[in-house]
C-alpha cells in the first residue's frame, strides 16, 4: 500500500489533503460518506455502521454512527483548512447483505443508514452530488482528493466511477 493511501476501516473516519487517496474496503450495510472541498482539495471519508447514536448505549466511538461521524469528519477537515461552505458529498453503500424473509424495517440497517446520512447532510447543508446505495452487494471505494473522483468496485457488479 502506498503512503499516499489511507485506509478507513469500519467505524473510522479520516481526512486528508491531496494527493492522498482515501480507501474503504467492503462496505455492505455500512455507508462510506465522502466529503470534498474542491478548492482546497481536501477530502474526508467516514465508514459508518449505524444510523443513530442516541439509540445506542454509551459509546465513545464517533466514527460508528452517522449522526456523530459527520460533524466529527467536518471538524477534522476544517482543521486541515477545508471550508465547510464548499463541501460536497458522495455516498456509497447501505446494501442489505442478508435477505431475511420477514425483515422488519428495523432490520433493514442499510436503508436506515442511507436515510440517516442524507438527513444529516441536509442538516449540515452539504449537497449530495452522487450516490450509489442500496441493493444487495458489497462495494469497495477509492476516493481521490486530487479531483474528488470516486472509484467503486464490487465482486460481481463491475466498476463504476462517479
Amino acid at each position, binding site marked *: 500500500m502506498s503512503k499516499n493511501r489511507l485506509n478507513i*476501516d*469500519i*467505524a*473510522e473516519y479520516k481526512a486528508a489533503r491531496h494527493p492522498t487517496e482515501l480507501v474503504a*474496503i*467492503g*462496505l*455492505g*450495510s*455500512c455507508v462510506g460518506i465522502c466529503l470534498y472541498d474542491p478548492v482546497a482539495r481536501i477530502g474526508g471519508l467516514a465508514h459508518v*455502521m*449505524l444510523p443513530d447514536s442516541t*439509540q*445506542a*448505549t454509551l*459509546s*465513545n*466511538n464517533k*466514527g*460508528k454512527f452517522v449522526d456523530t461521524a459527520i460533524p466529527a469528519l467536518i471538524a477534522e477537515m476544517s482543521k486541515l483548512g477545508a471550508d465547510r461552505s464548499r463541501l460536497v458529498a458522495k455516498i456509497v453503500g447501505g*446494501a*442489505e*447483505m*442478508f*435477505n*431475511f*424473509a420477514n425483515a422488519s424495517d428495523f432490520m433493514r*440497517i*442499510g436503508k436506515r443508514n442511507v436515510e440517516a446520512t442524507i438527513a444529516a447532510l441536509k442538516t449540515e447543508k452539504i449537497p449530495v452530488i452522487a450516490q450509489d446505495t442500496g441493493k444487495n*452487494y*458489497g*462495494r*469497495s471505494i477509492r476516493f481521490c482528493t486530487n479531483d474528488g473522483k470516486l472509484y467503486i468496485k464490487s*465482486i*460481481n457488479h463491475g466498476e463504476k466511477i462517479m
Partner: protein
Amino acid sequence: MVDMLNLNNLQLDALKEVGNIGAGNAATALSKMIKTRIEMSVPDIMILPFSRIAATIGGPDAHVTAIYYTIKGQAPGTLLFLIPVIDARKIAGVLLNKGVSDDQLPFDEMECSAIRELGNIMAGSFLNALNMFTSIHFVPTVPALCIDMVGAILGSVLTNLGMVSDYVLFIKTEFKYQGNHALGNLYFLPEAEALQVILNSLGVNN
C-alpha cells in the same frame, strides 16, 4: 454486567472451553456430512474494536461464503461460519453429489441450499453441545447466506453488537481438512448480556 475488557484468565478459559465443546460437536457433524475427516484448532478468544475485526479474518476484501445466525433466548449472540468461496463450492459439490461448478458463475439455488443446510446442521450441533454444557437454552433463528467481501458481511453481522459496545468479543475455531488445509472458521459472538449468563452457568462469574 461483566465488562468484556476485564475478564480474568479463568473466565477466558471457560469461554474458550465453551467454544471448544460447541465446535467439536460441529466438526463431527461436518465430517459426517461431507464424509471427510475434519480437524479443528484450539479456539481463540479475541476482544477487539470494530475496526480491527476484518483484519483477523483474512482482510475486508476476502471473498467468502457466510452463513449467519442470530441467537435469541437468554443468551443472545451471533454465530457466523465463514468458508472461502472456492471451498464452499467444493463442499456443495460433495453434498449434491456432482462436480465442482465453474468459479465464474454465481452459486445456483441448489448450491445455496446445500450450504445453508450444512450451516444449519453445524449451528444446531454447536448450540446443542453448548446447551448440554451450560443448561442454557439457545434459540437459533433461520440462517442467512451471503457470498461477498468479508468487510461487507461484517457490517451487517455486527449491527446488534454495535448498538451496545465499542468492542466485540468473539471465539474463533478453525476447521481443517487432514493435512492442514483450511476449510473455514466458525465464530461465536455472545452479546454482553449472554457473557454474563454463560459465565454464571459455569460458576465463574467473578
